[in-house]
């Protein structure tokens, strides 16, 4: 007798469990608001990527066209596939000391795997990950970018 009760219990339990699952998918079917897909080319104007999205490496500049890069070269050394090149020069500052100054921070987007190591290891937080992802170009050489803007200088107090 007990085995029969257990048998029936099993059947009704299984049916109830199946209905539980079907309720979830059925709810989604009748609620198109739950759709999470972004319809990309249509929503291009309003599309905002999430904060952690890694689109490309950028060097943030402030309003006085100053960046924080001290040309130390740590990002270049840490880059696993050599997509960063730093060209620096020695300059004498107003105190009369010889200092390394960044002239070009070259970033090869075509070689970058967006691993984030350069951003993580930068001692002065000069680099960041941008959220632009539309990188398609017709010429490979256009993927080599200079990250520091022309005429920019080192931010005061960054050393």
């Amino acid at each position: 007798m007990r085995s029969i009760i257990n048998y029936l219990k099993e059947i009704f339990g299984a049916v109830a469990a199946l209905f539980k699952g079907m309720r979830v998918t059925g709810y989604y079917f009748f609620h198109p608001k739950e759709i999470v897909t972004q319809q990309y080319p249509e929503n291009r104007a309003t599309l905002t990527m999430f904060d952690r999205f890694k689109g490309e490496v950028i060097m943030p500049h402030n309003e006085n066209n100053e960046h924080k890069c001290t040309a130390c070269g740590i990002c270049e050394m840490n880059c696993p596939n050599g997509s960063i090149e730093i060209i620096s020069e020695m300059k004498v500052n107003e105190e009369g000391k010889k200092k390394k100054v960044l002239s070009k921070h070259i970033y090869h987007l075509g070689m970058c795997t967006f691993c984030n190591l350069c951003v993580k290891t930068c001692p002065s937080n000069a680099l960041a990950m941008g959220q632009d992802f539309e990188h398609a170009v017709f010429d490979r050489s256009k993927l080599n970018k200079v990250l520091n803007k022309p005429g920019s200088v080192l931010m005061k107090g960054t050393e």
Partner: protein
Amino acid sequence: MEFNIYDLTSFTSSFDQLLMENLSPFWAVAIEMILIGVAILAFYAVVGLYLVYAERKVCAFMQCRVGPNRVGPYGFFQTIADLIKLLMKELIPIKNADKLLFNIAPYIVIIASFMAIAAIPFAKGLHAIDFNIGIFYIMAVSSLGVIGILIAGWSSNNKYSLIGAMRSGAQIVSYELSVGLSLITIVILSGSLQLSTIVEGQRDGWFLFTGHIPALIAFLVFLVAATAETNRGPFDLAEAESELTAGFHTEYSGIKFAFFFLAEYMNMFIVASIAVTMFLGGWMPFHVGGWEAFNNIMDYIPPFFWYAGKTAFIIWVMMWFKWTFPRLRIDQLLTLEWKYLLPINLVNIIIMAFVVLMGWHF
């Protein structure tokens, strides 16, 4: 020639008379057969294509996605584009495959589902052939498809295909029992195997309601067994993408693959049609015995739309199953059939026989 959308019998019989008057009986019958064949072929292709589209859309909505939405408005022409692609793809010949069987298999699968369609009543008078053993014929013919699957698996000379085909064989042999027994439950209630009589018998209420408890159990068992019969998820062990790449049709490409694909969806349509005809009244509008006014209002919707709506609903439920439940293991599949569905079904037949004997149905 009068055309009445509520009753196509007069239309078809007047067309038959017209042919008979002008031609010898042989040519009249031949032309009728060709016309029906072409009509069913066109219907088959269109329904198959749009079931694929419907499946992709339903599955997308259930997974919080949009689904195909690029080719035409709401992606409406997506499957047509897919068909064109499949037609133009290369048919790859397999080395060491059994050429004859390999080429025959897709046709066997598609012919089996094609033959079943002939006996389905779509609307009053829209019924290619009305056998007096209609439901028996459909069951017999629709289970022939598994022979094509077995041949496809065997002739591919590929272990994945063979495993998939063997699983499919075990599955159909088991679940054919449940399908047959659950339909027998309704045959007991209706007292006929002829589909037109079965539909006519549901004039005062569909069998699902007039047969109450045993009919409801039979309906649920039929839905489960029918889903298994069509090799659809959660019973798609024959294909089992994650284990067997594509199962029995791994080696097929181009239009031969499309045949298997189309046959799968048409089998789903046929099974849904059987469920509708046996349990939900076929093309019969929703009637409640004794409510004359209500019944007259329901009669305003043409029978074909009743049939199509109900079939679409059953198909949607089967898609709902597929996109909710995870796939069963082969032992779980056989346990479900032999330890649960079959005993339930046998007990259910006795209950139904008792209900009919005592006149406890409506």
